[in-house]
């Protein structure tokens, strides 16, 4: 018995080592499993109080804050900014090795936003707010190829998410769920930029699923792919979250399930063909998306080890599927204020929907900003808990009939952010056991957390707030162990890496993005979140 326990412990430790990052932070979510967990433990609960700045890099691009996840490979950091500038920095000193400035066109449907680059096969890949994908030489910063994925003036779409390198392709998503646009994923050859495949998130006439769209509604029905997917190399499956159906709040012209919007899709990366799909929100009328990060992990559920894909999204629920088949396993609420459904059955059916109506306002929770926004959570295989940035905000929704016009706004209603009924809006970081949905601890903040979470083997959880504090929590208790004021609000994603045996924590700082303005309306008395654009890097003091 003891031997078995030891074996199990050993197995879980090995697993933990496997799915964490080490010296590098090679991909958007850390590894392609997107857990934002690092196996580095030099910085830990016992010494984090001595963590101090090692260097700071100012990008000089103060547009819309610094929203990126830095990529780190062999001690070099690749960082992108809202104006589509890319920097290669020495990870130990902050020295600029090269920089690349893309010139954005005038049509920027969702403004200047950039959440990071992908690096692989000697190239750095950048998606742009005017809908280009660009390959840059990883060594020199010279442009190698670029593709105009779709004319942003026509489609009302752009690329704001980080691309993902999978085998010999780079995959780019697209925004456009709040415009009249049909979403897709596009794969390009890493070396030549030639298109390898395109997967439309809305099936064309004759394809399975098309029958879920009446008339011509499929042509401009949304389903954007605006965040970054995950990849399981053993199953050879690419997973991507698909956004809301359009118009966002009014389904009167698209009665039906509207596949594959608000769904998780699994795609064969060699062909671009759909392997399976799971729709979380049929006929989404709340702008709930299912576009966020997809955690790939193995969990023991009902006595069986399952290969799971897990997502926490705007709905206030965590969804867990078998990632080999797409079978629904479980959905559990992580937010306190949820009324868009009364519940979700054991087989994944929504019960008691609260759909917006034409001309009548309804208070719906969570809001279209979501109980969690695109800033990402983290999972630690050591605690086996999921760490999420959560906000409790509702919205008054009213649907409206809207003319559809390609590439133009296509919201179909209005939302006004409101506090939850009988309470007030709040934000926090919380830890959850995904097996039970139990909240293990909660760390309340002054306003909300709009930065991603980083978990490490030092049993630390890092994130930052709009007021400028970047801090470390004890992963097991939620106690704040260390804080540093960076001077600007946090809207990016911190990472960790090591060079020559020294562990670094790097956080982007600089408030911005589409929801940045909402902060003042929600918390009028809170200090103004400061714009800025710097990478602040920390390490333990060197022993002389």
């Amino acid at each position, binding site marked *: 018995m003891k031997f078995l326990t030891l074996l199990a412990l050993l197995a879980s430790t090995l697993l933990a080592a496997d799915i964490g990052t080490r010296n590098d932070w090679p991909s958007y979510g850390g590894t392609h499993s997107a857990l934002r967990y690092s196996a580095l433990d030099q910085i830990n609960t016992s010494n984090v109080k001595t963590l101090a700045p090692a260097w700071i890099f100012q990008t000089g691009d103060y547009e819309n804050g610094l929203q990126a996840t830095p990529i780190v490979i062999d001690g070099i950091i690749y960082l992108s900014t809202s104006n589509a500038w890319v920097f290669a920095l020495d990870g130990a000193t902050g020295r600029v090795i090269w920089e690349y400035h893309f010139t954005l066109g005038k049509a920027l449907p969702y403004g200047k936003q950039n959440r990071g680059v992908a690096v692989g096969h000697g190239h750095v890949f950048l998606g742009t707010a005017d809908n280009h994908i660009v390959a840059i030489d990883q060594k020199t910063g*010279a*442009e*190698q*190829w*670029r*593709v*105009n*994925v*779709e*004319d942003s*003036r*026509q*489609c009302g779409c752009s690329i704001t998410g980080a691309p993902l390198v999978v085998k010999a392709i780079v995959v780019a998503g697209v925004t456009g769920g709040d415009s009249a*646009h*049909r979403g897709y994923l*596009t794969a390009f050859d890493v*070396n*030549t*930029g*030639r*298109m390898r495949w*395109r997967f439309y998130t809305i099936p*064309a006439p004759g394809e399975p699923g098309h029958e879920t769209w009446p008339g011509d509604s499929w*042509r401009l029905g949304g389903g954007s792919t605006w965040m970054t997917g995950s990849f399981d190399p053993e199953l050879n499956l690419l997973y991507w979250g698909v956004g809301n159906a359009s118009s966002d709040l009014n389904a009167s012209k698209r009665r039906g399930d509207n596949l594959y919007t608000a769904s998780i899709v699994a795609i064969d990366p060699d062909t671009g063909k759909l392997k399976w799909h799971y729709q979380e929100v049929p006929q989404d009328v709340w702008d709930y998306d299912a576009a966020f990060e997809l955690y790939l992990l193995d969990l023991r559920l009902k006595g069986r080890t399952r290969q799971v894909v897990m997502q926490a999204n705007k709905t206030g629920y965590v969804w867990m599927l078998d990632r080999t088949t797409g079978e629904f396993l479980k959905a559990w609420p992580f937010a306190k204020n949820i009324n868009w459904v009364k519940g979700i059955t054991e087989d994944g059916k929504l019960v008691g929907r609260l759909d917006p109506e034409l*001309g*009548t*306002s309804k208070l719906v929770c969570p809001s279209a900003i979501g109980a969690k926004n695109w800033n990402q959570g983290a999972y630690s295989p050591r605690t086996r808990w999921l760490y999420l940035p959560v906000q409790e905000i509702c919205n*008054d929704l*009213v649907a*409206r009939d*809207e003319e559809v016009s*390609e590439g133009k*706004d296509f*919201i179909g209603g*209005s939302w*006004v952010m409101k506090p939850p009924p009988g309470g007030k809006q709040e934000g926090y970081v919380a830890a959850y056991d995904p097996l039970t949905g139990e909240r293990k601890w909660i760390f309340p903040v002054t306003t909300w957390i709009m930065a991603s979470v980083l978990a490490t083997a030092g049993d630390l959880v890092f994130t930052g707030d709009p007021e400028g504090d970047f801090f470390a929590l004890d992963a097991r208790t939620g106690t704040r162990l260390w804080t540093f004021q960076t001077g600007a609000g946090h809207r990016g994603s911190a990472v960790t890496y090591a060079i020559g045996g020294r562990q670094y924590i790097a956080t982007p700082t600089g408030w911005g993005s589409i929801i940045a*303005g909402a902060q003042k*309306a929600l918390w009028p008395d809170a200090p103004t979140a400061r714009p800025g654009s710097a990478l602040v890097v920390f390490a333990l003091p060197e022993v002389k």
Partner: protein
Amino acid sequence: MRRVAWALLSATLLRAESPQVKRGAEIFRTTCSVAYCHGANGTAGRAPQLTGRAFKAGDVFALVMYGRAGTSMPGFAKQLKSEDVEAVAQYVVSLSGPAPAEAAKPGAREIPASVREGKALFFDAVRMGGCGKCHELEERGSAVGTDLSTLAPERFRNLRAIQATRIVTAKPADEEPFPGLIVEQSADTVRVHDLSSSLPVLRTFQPAQVHITPGGAWSHADAVQNYSDAELEAISGYLVWLVQTKP
């Protein structure tokens, strides 16, 4: 004239029929008409005139809620309930005139119904942008190939038979050759569009990395093979209209 009359009539009907617009008008009068702002019925005080313009309810809603930074236009999110703001938005939309926004834009022409389908096919999103993947017209598409607005209408008679004159063959080191269009060829840079991909790729090389020769394995007939003859005829109609009505 009949259209104008109809638009006025329908605006009047809308105003008369919808309780929401009626409510919007009431709030407008107590909120937006006051203090030298938008005038009694949106006919302008010191703030902009709202009648006869082409507003979308969503835009007006957002503007009324949150105001416009740098101007006197305040946000009313705190004072008004969202359904009241919505009513105001609907009222302001009801003041809109028949003027189509497209025609009002300098340089833009109102497109006749007969060539509308041709234009839609030219930029067809279902065909990944169609002809617009390679040709930019009317601020749409990508300027990879020839600027079609400079051509004579006879050139659009048979779109399959068009002979491309600027095609080259680019042979990068360690890669198969591809048909291309040169964007830049200087002492230190060669930039060439790779036309072999479904979406053109703009490649950048150092001159020593790529060998360029005139002519290449590319035909316009292949590029337009996803269109039927009838569709190409409709596209021709659009292009002929475009160059013939050029200001």
